[in-house]
């Protein structure tokens, strides 16, 4: 088993990773995990890796056979199917990373080896479950609460959008968060606005929740929540944290007296999670 693992662990993990990646790309969900600028590169490298993985199945069993042949142990039963028999075979000229282990015999060494094998199997199994069995997911409010809201509303491509004459209907949660960060005068916003995001309770004011999104610069690890505050007393009765909602209404002076305007909604409707839940 150890021998099998040593030879195939990398190929198996690569296969799992590649299948997961290509499936996410095909079902349009790669964006749950990484920034769109990496999509093309990721898919190209995954395709190259698939070629190597399939080729490995063709090449490695033959290589092994030759190695055993060369060591004078070339009975025909040794194909890649019965990997369990060759723990202590000498692999001729073969790559033997662990040759030193064979010398260090003894119960401690063999226990360590067994532990290594178990860990190796656990890594492959765990990776397969995480990448192939669990359904793809986006981050939840558990992470949003752990990270500073609207800290990331600065960035190279996030200069405050132009309000004057701008078409605010295409503004994202991130755009509005950026604008609100500058504590503008609510009188500038005549038209009602509409934002879609998940419900993130405000830590300071129980009448307020944020319509929030995660913004991602590289991958989900660096996701930062951005959000537009919505003033709606009693919102807890209608929504729970993490529910996706669309809020429509006007920006107005914060009834609680904060410096930044808040959204005073006319309607807040539940909605489904959008295809691309993050903003970039």
């Amino acid at each position, binding site marked *: 088993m150890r021998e099998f693992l040593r030879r195939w662990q*990398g190929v198996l993990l690569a296969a799992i990773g590649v299948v997961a990646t290509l499936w996410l790309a095909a079902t349009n969900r790669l964006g749950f995990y990484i920034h769109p600028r990496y999509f093309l590169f990721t898919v190209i490298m995954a395709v*190259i890796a698939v070629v*190597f*993985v399939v080729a490995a199945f063709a090449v490695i069993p033959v*290589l092994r056979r030759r190695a055993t042949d060369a060591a004078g142990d070339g009975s025909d039963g040794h194909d890649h199917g019965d990997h369990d028999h060759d723990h202590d075979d000498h692999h001729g*000229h073969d790559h*033997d990373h662990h040759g030193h282990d064979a010398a260090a015999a003894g119960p401690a060494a063999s226990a360590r080896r067994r532990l290594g094998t178990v860990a*190796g199997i656990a890594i492959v199994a765990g990776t397969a479950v995480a990448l192939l069995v669990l359904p793809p997911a986006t981050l939840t409010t558990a992470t949003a609460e*752990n990270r500073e809201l609207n800290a990331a509303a600065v960035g190279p491509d996030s200069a405050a959008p132009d309000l004057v004459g701008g078409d605010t209907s295409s503004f994202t949660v991130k755009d509005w968060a950026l604008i609100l960060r500058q504590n503008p005068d609510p009188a500038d916003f005549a038209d009602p606005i509409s934002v879609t995001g998940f419900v993130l309770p405000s830590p300071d004011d129980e009448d307020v929740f944020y319509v929030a999104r995660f913004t991602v610069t590289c991958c989900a690890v660096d996701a930062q929540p951005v959000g537009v505050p919505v003033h709606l007393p009693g919102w807890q009765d209608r929504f729970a944290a993490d529910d996706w909602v669309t809020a429509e209404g006007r920006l107005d002076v914060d009834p609680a007296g904060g410096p930044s305007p808040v959204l005073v909604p006319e309607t807040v409707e539940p909605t489904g999670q959008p295809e691309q839940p993050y903003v970039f």
Partner: protein
Amino acid sequence: MTSPVSAPARPASTTRRTVGFGVGVAAVLLLLSVRLFAPAETGEALSDGVRDGITLAISVVIESLPFVFLGTVLSIAVQLFLPADFLMRRLPRTPWLRRAVVSLFGVLLPVCECGNVPLARGLMLRGLSVGESMTFLLAAPILNPVTIVVTYQAFGWEDGILAWRIIGGFLVANLIGWIFSRHPDPMRLLTPGFQATCAHAADEQAAHGGAHGRAAAPAKARQAVRMFADETSAMLPALMVGSAIAGAIQIAVSRDVLVAVGQDAVWSVVALMLLAFVISICSNVDAFFALAFGSTFLPGAIIAFLVFGPMIDIKMLALMRTTFTARTLVQVTAVVALASAAIGLGVNAFA
């Protein structure tokens, strides 16, 4: 690769190869069907926190995997196509000058840090010393065009962040290279597994001379596939473990605690270095991420983040552990951390 490369392929092995291809395709399809038919309800039993930890770990894997593949392919290319003495003949002979040149390799090979580990292993098998390969490993993520352009986009010339990042990266990488070049027996810095690989590569070179360069194309292709299997067997388990730890720690460590100390000259540096260590973000884009802290943190802290992060973080340590002993990595981490902190504190104090 035992039989002479010129030997005609035996029909038996051709058949077996065709069968192998079939098995390979079947295995990939099997994994795909697991993915397709996995019930969507799995995972609903997990709490949000655990869910997010897994999501974060997966995102590190999906992000890093293509870079590891790219690094592996480049490493294979270096070993198969670069003549053994190519580097040795062209690099300067003076050790410090040589390391200075090696630290600029990243300009030609703008791979992210996780791809640099397999590449550094390939370069070591092609004659680079341990100290030199460490210099490459630490310098390349910072001294490469992608990182520099992105850092410029994020910060411009503001507060000397870009300049100090480049200078700091160069100095720290060369300092490490110099320290480890003085080790009496550099092979002992390497894991036994990688030592064996090195010894094997040296044997092969002695046995075949320049045979690599003249081997027939099919033989080279087979060798490339075998190297891919070997290299991924070393790298991917480390990547998976590193990503899992990185995901778990994100959930365990509250980020608010880290960012609460932004204006303190000393603690801000420590906090952002800790964040860099924990978050294991790719060096090509970490400047965008750091920009989010630009308004609340002192420039020295940002610089320490941008110098320390690409060199050392959880994921990188897991990957480097495939090649270097734990003891070596503790020493490297300590020196890099102290040097990065010194640069950050210096900028906070004097700039």
